[in-house]
């Protein structure tokens, strides 16, 4: 079995989370009153600002720390973060864009076969864990990559990791293990799939 199969697996990045700092104190009330698309949450102490162009939601704290979520790629996240900083600058704060870091990347991927989770867990004992009472997916944690993969019995995967490269590597790593424990499809199904492709 090869580590990459005939038709390439599509790894679709669905969410990128990044943080950065503005190095200056922000007055949340000003932002809340003078910005469009803002939600002010005084009880928590933050402002949610949503941008349209790269579709991003940012949580802004008064200390100047900002978390951006919802981007679909690392570059997008950076552009969105800079946009946001520019917006804050226009509101009158002395914003400096610093310490931009992508913290988390979430991607989904779909295998063309179903997976037998019990076997998969048995083969990869301490690294994989499966608790049907708690969650329908088996969790596979790769320590050195700091990535977590959730494997569902239908063959879909969700991968989270600190950056896109790690996520891709994680999928590459886990593919052969999944291939071993795949559930052979019935003949009829296989025929259908082929006709669809």
């Amino acid at each position, binding site marked *: 079995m090869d580590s990459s199969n005939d038709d390439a697996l599509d790894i679709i990045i669905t969410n990128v989370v990044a943080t950065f700092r503005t190095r200056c104190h922000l007055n949340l009330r000003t932002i809340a009153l003078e910005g469009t698309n803002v939600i002010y949450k005084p009880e928590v102490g933050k402002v949610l600002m949503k941008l349209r162009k790269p579709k991003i939601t940012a949580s802004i704290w008064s200390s100047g720390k900002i978390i951006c979520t919802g981007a679909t790629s690392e570059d997008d996240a950076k552009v969105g973060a800079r946009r946001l900083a520019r917006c804050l600058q226009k509101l009158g704060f002395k914003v400096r864009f610093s310490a931009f870091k992508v913290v988390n990347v979430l991607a989904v991927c779909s295998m063309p076969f179903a997976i037998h989770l019990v076997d998969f867990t048995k083969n990869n004992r301490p690294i994989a864990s499966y608790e049907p*009472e708690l969650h329908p997916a088996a969790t596979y944690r790769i320590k050195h990559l700091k990535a977590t993969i959730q494997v569902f019995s239908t063959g879909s995967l969700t991968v989270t990791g600190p950056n896109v490269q790690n996520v891709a590597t994680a999928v590459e790593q886990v593919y052969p293990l999944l291939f071993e424990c795949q559930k052979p499809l019935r003949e009829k199904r296989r025929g259908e799939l082929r006709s669809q492709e």
Partner: protein
Amino acid sequence: MSSRTCHTCGGTDIDVDQARGSAVCTSCGSVLEDNIIVSEVQFVEGSGGVSSAVGQFVSADGPVKAPQLGSGFHTSVGKESRAQTLQSGKRQIQQLGSQLQLNQHCLDTAFNFFKMVVSKHLTRGRKMEHVIAACLYLVCRTEGTPHMLLDLSDLLQVNVYILGKTFLLLARELCINAPAIDPCLYIPRFAHMLDFGTKTHDVSMTALRLVQRMKRDWMHTGRRPSGLCGAALLVAARMHTFRRTVKDVISVVKVCQTTLRKRLTEFEETPTSQLTIDEFMRVDLEQECDPPSFTAGQHKTKMQQLENELTRKLDEVEGEISCYKNEIETELEKSRPKLRGIYAAYAREIDPEDTEVLSSASDLEEAESEEAELQAATQHLTQDFLCQVMEEEVGQDRKTDGVRQKMGPEEEGGGALRQVAPLATILGKLTTTAPFDLQQTFDPSPEDDETEHGVLDLDGIDDQEIEKYILNDREVQVKTELWMKQNAEYLQEQREKDERIRKEKEQGTYKEKKKKKSKKGEQVEALTAGEAIEKMLEKKKISRKINYDVLRDLNSRGGGSSPAHPPNTNTDVQQKLSRRRQRRSSGVNYELAANASIMGKRFHRLISTTTTTTKKKKRVESQVQNPVTMTTTTTTTTTTKAVAETSHDPEPHPTSSTAVPPTVEEEEEEEVEEEECVSALQLVGDYGCEEEEVF
């Protein structure tokens, strides 16, 4: 028995007598030792001739002081912290384990796990009970006992996912590989609980077969095993002619109805479900199914594909239709009688509506240019008209009748509606791309780049767009007003708080109060509203003079009538109200029973709201006046009225209780003992004041 030599003769042959405790040299006979410490077991005769061994059991767990008589304090006397933790853990394990009916071996294993956990410092930052529960569940899994995590969470009243998290963490840290749960383990346990009498074993066997079949059909991956068991048991029970309803099964198995039904439908879709009972017991089908979520996913993709094809075909058809339409229009234009003069002006107006309808009532004109103009005009107008129609459609929930008429007879009737949609999409795209074009004309002129570290690199950022994100002054004003109005109470509070602090500072009594995390109101777990009331009353200890027993009896009556509570102040208002209510309430008793359920639900809400801390006492005061007026005007029954009021006041103020009331007179009409009852609402309202009612 050390090989010593005798002092006198040097002989090595020493005889040690354990009983006498002496060591004697055999050659010369000199006594070397007397009173050697013996390690014999001694027996003592107790009362009644019972012999018992002398001595005390010393625990292997470390230096444990012998329990002193009369102290009872085993824990805190001069022991180190680790030993205390272990001992307390052991005790808790014993307690919890006995509730689960685990045998001693399991409990010992659990304690060993616990010792490992403590030595790895994993108890830090975690509640002891969570850790204990996780240890016990680990044992259950490794031993294969039919205990679910749900059982543990039931006993501890903790969210099952929290326990699960702790369990997973411990399993990972201790490198314990718990084998996966097999739903077959739970079948006997649930079968016992479902009470099948002598045929329990048969039913269990059938259910086991069903579960195994389900496993082969891939219904069990990713699902809670209890759900599968429930479905299997239900079917097995029916197969053996036991009438077990879905409700019975779900109360035992602890899943919800929807889940059970879903499992049953999934099983129905497998080919095994087509077999008869006998066939099933004998034959085992060869083929295996795909997991149901997989098939659902496939189904979805297939539907989507079909839809895509449909839309594609529609587009083609639509293209054809518009071709035809254009041709027909041109033909019509040619054959249409041309209008002249004033009628021409009219024609331009009515043209869009009657493009397909021949208007033959006017003179013709032969000018080619006019015709061309008209054609262009009609084209343009039809497009506009279509736009308009789209908007109308979108706005008016598909009022398609008028449109169909206007769209005209030459289009296939069924095709009309569908045509509208694709056209809308086309036109829609047109309208939305316009602003984007405009946008791009304002190309971003790159701002001056400051290349210092940390300062914003504005490459590629469109300033114009960002301008949009910032409101101008007028908008700011409006928004400020809105926000101020919306958060008026919060701001008011802040102001008052500041004032208070200032005053205290002046007086010198200002204490720096640390912000306490507000204690979330404990959820009162109760099955009925009555129980909830009881529990709350016990907690709050509202009044000594209330006859709680009678209050409890309320429930048995189904909360039939709300108990009386003579008003404290404002008696005249009260009496007026009560008299009015008395008149109305005469026919109301039978309704009360019906309203009891409503009341029950509202009581529940009331209780949960009263236990949470609220800041808005001032608001309550202002609102108190409203309920008073409201009650006099509503025509609902007294109970619902009373309840409605309390639902307005999150924390009923003592004075509000006066407005509340179910009346004394009303109760007098009913059974006598009800007179002595106190309305729970009143109780809650009155817990501040001591003006008590007279029974």
